[in-house]
């Protein structure tokens, strides 16, 4: 619809020769008068004038003295706004093609030479090299109010530089490219152009970025004797604005962590869910670019289908539109973006919704103009209509944040683009047309620029179609009974109420007609039927913001458990009829008839009180488990990807679990570092991770690391023989690295070597996935060669065959109770394993490696009583104090002992019994699971789901957009999950 009038655009550079005509100059001005001019979000001039020349603002003010050679345009009743800026698009740049697969074997090597070793790191790329101005796309953005776009190639982890382009079709690239290196871009997403495997995980992407920045520092100091154009590019881009696509509240914080570590001041592209963690987002002190792709309501009319939708997803529909408001209220600087919308035309509706949810209009305008300009350091050129800025502005019929407002023109660099004809008359109203002997009532309403019609006689409606452009009206309507079609075409005179023209009758004859305007027209009433109203109710947030989340973190309480059977997991054994006093989160006293001293008394008669269960081998509460892209991934850490919102945390609490080690998977001989956490449901990852956490790393042996059970033949090692050599090689290198560093010589900081050196120095412990006796023995011998001890063998299903050697080495065993037969290397796995290792003096724990089994580890421990006759007390230790010892947290947790953390479970029955239920699970005096509370929450979840479904149904019935139901598909991890 838009057409272009190149008035003042700099269509050709002054020093260019011209042969298709004569070189001439137009030095005229354009003056817009009588408009409400929004110079900036905070400065509005009523009845003001705007003077532009050569694509820039020459003057703006209440009265402007215009030179003689000015073309004046009267904008009486109209508004002028600076046009919008979106920094985060891929406008006019080509996305690289997806790399073709060649066989199923993963690719481990880089495909490039002379660049960084990882294909997903491409700081040397410049968007301008894949740029070609896209007029069609520019038109779509202009219709949505945008005048300038930041654009880059959305591909890869380090993506190189992006550019800033004005949507000026006339000026040519010389005028419209405002900056060809406006910012550099990053993300956690790999490039589609390369199949290089590393990184396979989020934590790998983080580790890669960190190493990349360290390497760049080292390179800048001139330490490299070869050329790396990626590192050179990153160093050359130093000081350029960095924009990081994080995409969710938690990834925002991950990006911010890297930003802080290397002093990068990332501007973070968020995910729209910041409201859920608004305090932490505020505390990040970062500036944000925020998408507004609020989800449509789900179609919940089919109850069988509706059950798939989680409460969390229903809430998202209800709550997400308040995100911009929440950011604003917390004084977080943010720009808005069309990113994640299917097309720019969706932008206005979403923005209206944010405003209906309370986003301040001034902030909204700033987020589209001054903020993005300032983020790029271009406030002197863009974002407002002060003198000297680009003449990038919008002419509207009224308040731009009003739904019924029409956008007439979008001027970019002084080039006019018509979106809707400015002088087109508003014809909305009621008319009467007489045709074929009948008089029809015609109501014209809706958008003034694109009105719609309704044709009636009395109560009978006639299907009709209305076109209105350039002041010509075409209306056709059908008599459904006779199937007769009437067609009219007429012009609307500027100063008349009626319109008239030619009427084509069904029989083909033509006649004149006049549409006579009636009084009491709809035009007079403000049409606010489709005005976005705020939500009828916004349901409250919980932490995490899913079913079973808590409104607030449980309070720390002083509690006296009265008259319980207390399983101490200490030499004291099992104490009948005993009291345990919890004070300030610690176990204060154990004894008979203790005074409560103000503590809340819980009658535990007939019940059993134990220390919380500790799972040495868990993969819940993490967003990634394996970094499988290399045969060593010591540089990654699960602490980077702890997911405090995993419902399995809650379910584990319901099974009496209070602490877990989230281990890296078993995809490689040297895996990643662990996170050891307490299951403090409702709190964040930092609160869950142990303070001064013991340092652990996962190693793995056997079929998984040699990739026996899937199609991969290209990574070393492919045999157990090779596995030993991987260790020999890495530890030798780490030893050299450490020695060099300790000697004071400069080293290239290498995160992987740093971590391995910690092992050599006894500062980090290994928990090693292991099955068969040969490999178990091998790793102990490797460790002994390097003079350290393996801390834990996990799984260790043939530990019973070398239990004596394990005891001698001093390594513990953390094993399954009864798993076997799932792969070749567990053929000789036996359920007596724990009992045998225990009998030989190995510290034995029973672990889960499984989100389901972890919630009944008490039963798994009980199996050692059946298989091998372990005593009940010893069996119980295998899920409490023994794993605590293996994790080096036994001074804090794992038993009921005065002074230890009050991490306790109250059981309905003997804790090793299949009939026992955890009734209360407490961590540091806070009850994170309570059977009664759980029951209440079930009811609440049901009623909240019902409430939200009713709201969605009424949205649907009111004509709102809906989408089909969808269900979460939770990914469950175990050792072998490659993600």
């Amino acid at each position, binding site marked *: 619809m838009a057409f272009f009038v190149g008035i003042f655009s700099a269509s050709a550079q002054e020093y260019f020769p011209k042969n298709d005509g004569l070189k001439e100059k137009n030095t005229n001005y354009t003056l817009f008068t009588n408009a409400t001019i929004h110079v900036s979000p905070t400065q509005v001039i009523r009845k003001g004038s705007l003077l532009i020349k050569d694509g820039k603002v020459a003057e703006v003010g209440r009265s402007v003295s215009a030179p003689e050679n000015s073309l004046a345009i009267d904008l009486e009743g109209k508004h002028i706004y600076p046009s919008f800026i979106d920094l985060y698009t891929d406008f006019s740049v080509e996305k690289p093609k997806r790399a073709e697969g060649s066989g199923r074997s993963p690719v481990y090597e880089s495909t490039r030479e002379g660049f960084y070793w990882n294909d997903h790191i491409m700081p040397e790329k410049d968007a301008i090299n894949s740029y070609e101005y896209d007029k069609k796309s520019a038109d779509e953005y202009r219709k949505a109010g945008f005048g300038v776009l930041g654009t880059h190639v959305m591909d890869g982890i380090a993506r190189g530089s992006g550019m800033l382009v004005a949507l000026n079709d006339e000026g040519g690239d010389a005028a419209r490219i405002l900056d060809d290196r406006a910012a550099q871009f990053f993300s956690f997403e790999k490039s589609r152009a390369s199949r290089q495997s590393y990184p396979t995980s989020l934590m790998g992407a983080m580790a890669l970025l960190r190493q990349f920045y360290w390497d760049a520092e080292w390179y800048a100091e001139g330490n490299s004797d070869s050329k790396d154009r990626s590192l050179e590019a990153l160093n050359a881009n130093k000081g350029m604005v960095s924009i990081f696509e994080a995409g969710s509240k938690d990834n925002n914080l991950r990006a911010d962590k890297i930003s802080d570590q290397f002093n990068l001041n990332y501007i973070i592209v968020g995910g729209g869910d910041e409201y859920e963690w608004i305090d932490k987002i505020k505390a990040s002190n970062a500036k944000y670019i925020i998408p507004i792709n609020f989800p449509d309501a789900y179609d919940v009319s089919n109850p069988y289908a509706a059950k798939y939708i989680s409460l969390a997803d229903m809430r998202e529909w209800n709550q997400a539109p308040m995100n911009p408001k929440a950011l604003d209220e917390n004084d977080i600087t943010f720009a808005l973006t069309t990113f994640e919308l299917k097309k720019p035309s969706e932008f206005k509706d979403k923005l209206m919704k944010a405003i209906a949810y309370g986003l301040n209009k001034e902030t909204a305008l700033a987020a589209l103009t001054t903020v993005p300009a300032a983020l790029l350091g271009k406030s002197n050129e863009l974002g407002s209509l002060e003198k000297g800025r680009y003449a990038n502005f919008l002419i509207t019929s009224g308040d731009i944040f009003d739904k019924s407002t029409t956008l007439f023109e979008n001027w970019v660099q002084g080039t006019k683009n018509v979106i809707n004809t400015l002088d087109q008359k508003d014809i909305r109203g009621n008319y009467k047309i007489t045709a074929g002997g009948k008089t029809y009532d015609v109501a014209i309403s809706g958008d003034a620029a694109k009105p719609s019609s309704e044709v009636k006689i009395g109560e009978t409606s006639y299907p009709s179609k209305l076109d209105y452009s350039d002041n010509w009206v075409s209306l056709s309507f059908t008599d459904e009974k006779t199937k007769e079609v009437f067609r009219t075409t007429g012009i609307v005179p500027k100063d008349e109420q009626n319109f008239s023209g030619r009427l084509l009758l069904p029989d083909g004859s033509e006649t004149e007609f006049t549409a006579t305007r009636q009084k009491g027209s709809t035009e007079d009433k403000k049409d606010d039927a489709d005005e976005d109203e705020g939500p009828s109710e916004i349901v409250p947030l919980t932490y995490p913001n899913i079913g079973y989340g808590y409104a607030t973190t449980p309070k720390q309480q002083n509690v006296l458990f009265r008259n319980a059977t207390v399983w101490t997991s200490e030499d004291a054994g099992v104490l009948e009829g005993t009291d345990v006093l919890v004070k300030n989160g610690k176990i204060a006293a154990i004894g008979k008839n203790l005074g409560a001293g103000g503590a809340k008394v819980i009658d535990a008669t007939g019940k059993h009180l134990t220390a919380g269960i500790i799972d040495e081998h868990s993969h819940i509460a993490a967003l990634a488990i394996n970094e499988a892209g290399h045969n060593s991934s010591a540089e990654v850490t699960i602490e980077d990807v702890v997911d405090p919102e995993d419902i399995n945390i809650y379910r584990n609490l319901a099974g009496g679990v209070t602490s877990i080690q989230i281990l890296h998977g078993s995809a490689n001989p040297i895996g990643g570092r662990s996170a050891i956490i307490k299951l403090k449901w409702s709190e964040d990852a930092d609160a869950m991770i142990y303070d001064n956490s013991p340092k652990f790393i996962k190693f793995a042996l056997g079929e998984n690391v040699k990739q026996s059970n899937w199609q991969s033949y290209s990574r070393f090692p492919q045999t157990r023989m090779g596995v030993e050599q991987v260790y020999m090689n890495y530890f030798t290198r780490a030893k050299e690295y450490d020695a060099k560093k300790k000697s004071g010589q400069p080293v290239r900081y290498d995160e992987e070597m740093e971590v391995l050196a910690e092992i050599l120095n006894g500062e980090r412990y290994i928990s090693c996935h292991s099955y068969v006796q040969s490999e178990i023995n091998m790793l102990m011998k490797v460790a002994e060669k390097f003079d350290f001890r393996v801390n834990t063998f996990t799984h260790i299903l043939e530990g019973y065959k070398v239990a004596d050697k394990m005891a001698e080495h001093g390594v513990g065993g953390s094993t399954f109770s009864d798993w076997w*037969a*799932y792969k070749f290397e567990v053929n000789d796995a*036996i359920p007596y394993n724990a009992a045998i290792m225990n009998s030989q003096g190995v510290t034995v724990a029973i672990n889960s490696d499984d989100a389901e089994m972890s919630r009944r580890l008490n039963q798994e421990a009980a*199996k050692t*009583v059946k298989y091998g006759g372990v005593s009940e007390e010893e069996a119980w230790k295998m899920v409490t104090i023994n794993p605590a010892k293996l994790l080096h947290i036994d001074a804090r947790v794992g038993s009921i002992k005065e002074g230890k953390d009050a991490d306790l479970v109250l059981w309905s029955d003997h804790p090793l019994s*299949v*009939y026992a*239920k955890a009734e209360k699970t407490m961590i540091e005096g806070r009850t994170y699971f309570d059977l009664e509370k759980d029951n209440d929450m079930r009811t609440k979840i049901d009623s909240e789901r019902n409430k939200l479904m009713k709201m969605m149904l009424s949205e649907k019935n009111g004509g709102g957009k809906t989408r089909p139901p969808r269900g979460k598909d939770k990914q469950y991890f175990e050792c072998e999950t490659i993600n």
Partner: protein
Amino acid sequence: MKKVTLFITLCLFAVGFIGTAQQTPAPKQSEVITIKGATAHIGNGNVIENSVIVFENGTITAIGGSTTGTQGRVIDATGKHVYPGFIAPTKSLGLVEVDAVRPSDDQDELGEMIPNVRSLIAYNAESKVVESMRPNGVLIGQTTPNGGRISGTSSIVQFDAWNWEDAAIKTDDGIHLHWPNTFRRGRWWVGEPRGWQPNKDYQEDVTSVRQFLLNAKAYGDGNASEANNESFKATQGVFDGSKKVFVYAHGEKEMIDAVTALKESGVQDVVVVGGYEAHKIIPFLKKNSIPVLVREPHSLPYREDDDYDHSYKLPKLLAEGGVLVGIQNEDMANFQTRNMAFYAGHVAGQGLEKEEALKLITSNSAKILGIDDRYGTLETGKSATLFVSEGDALDMRTNKLTHAFIDGREISLETHQTELWKRYMDKYEREQ
């Protein structure tokens, strides 16, 4: 002291068993045996304290209180417990040995509707995994093919046999139909979002099942010899009641659709397998006399908002609602099947009376599988397929078998695993 006794026991066993593939199947019962003094858990909800159980030629001839007369060899089980052998429905036991080793996997044949594919002939009577069921009291199983829409035909076997013919209790007892789902997972590898989305092909898939059954019925009604169609032939039993249809479905709608379609197609006996939402349609299930084999209680809730203990309590809800319910664990690795007892125990922990919970893996399953004339309870005239445990067999601490019998044959409770245990304990004892 404990170590010494163990050492002696080890020596005794070490001689006989090391190196054999599976324990040698027991010979036929040759003498009358009486088990005396134990608490007998009948499997139908009743208990006889201080019981006497007599069996001869594989069949229980008498069971009663302490006044019942003993005969033949008397096993004093005072203070111990006797149970009917536990039953494991819908399992690929004997069809897969090691999950990750493809050559050992015979559970899933190519093809969508292949009822003519029979599990029995592939059943590995020498499976070490099958052997490991016995020390936990799991003595009978339905060896079941997997995959596709109609996976094939199962048979019911006992777990101490020389070969599959020996093992068979009930040959070709049912066909296994995996009902389509109204929702499906997003195919993320082709760019769809992860997560569950409506399955647009659902109705079409349902129609193809109906069509298959209609064709099979028509084939049977007509002159069957005209065309050789093994899959239609193998389906005939479902129309005359000689074969059951085990239909795998979890959702309310899926279960209702499945039962309706199967009944309308002339299928006589339908068993729902899975039944995650069966508690929501109890009246419907009862009206149609549909039993349910629920998914093992040791499974996670399907959805984030579901009760954490959904799977723990589902069998209880169904049993209390009057539905005939048993437990299966078809979606678990085969080795897990030895935990059947603890599934039932776990349900009892949620409030179902213990003897009722026991029915979930004994008499109820026997009824559902159609072998209750011989198996599932300790009653006169039924097979002497039973075991003695030192304590409560539903609790892992006390599930310790001293004797087990299949059709009166006293079977070995040793396994590849107990042998390794003893061998290595022996090694360590000798080193000291």
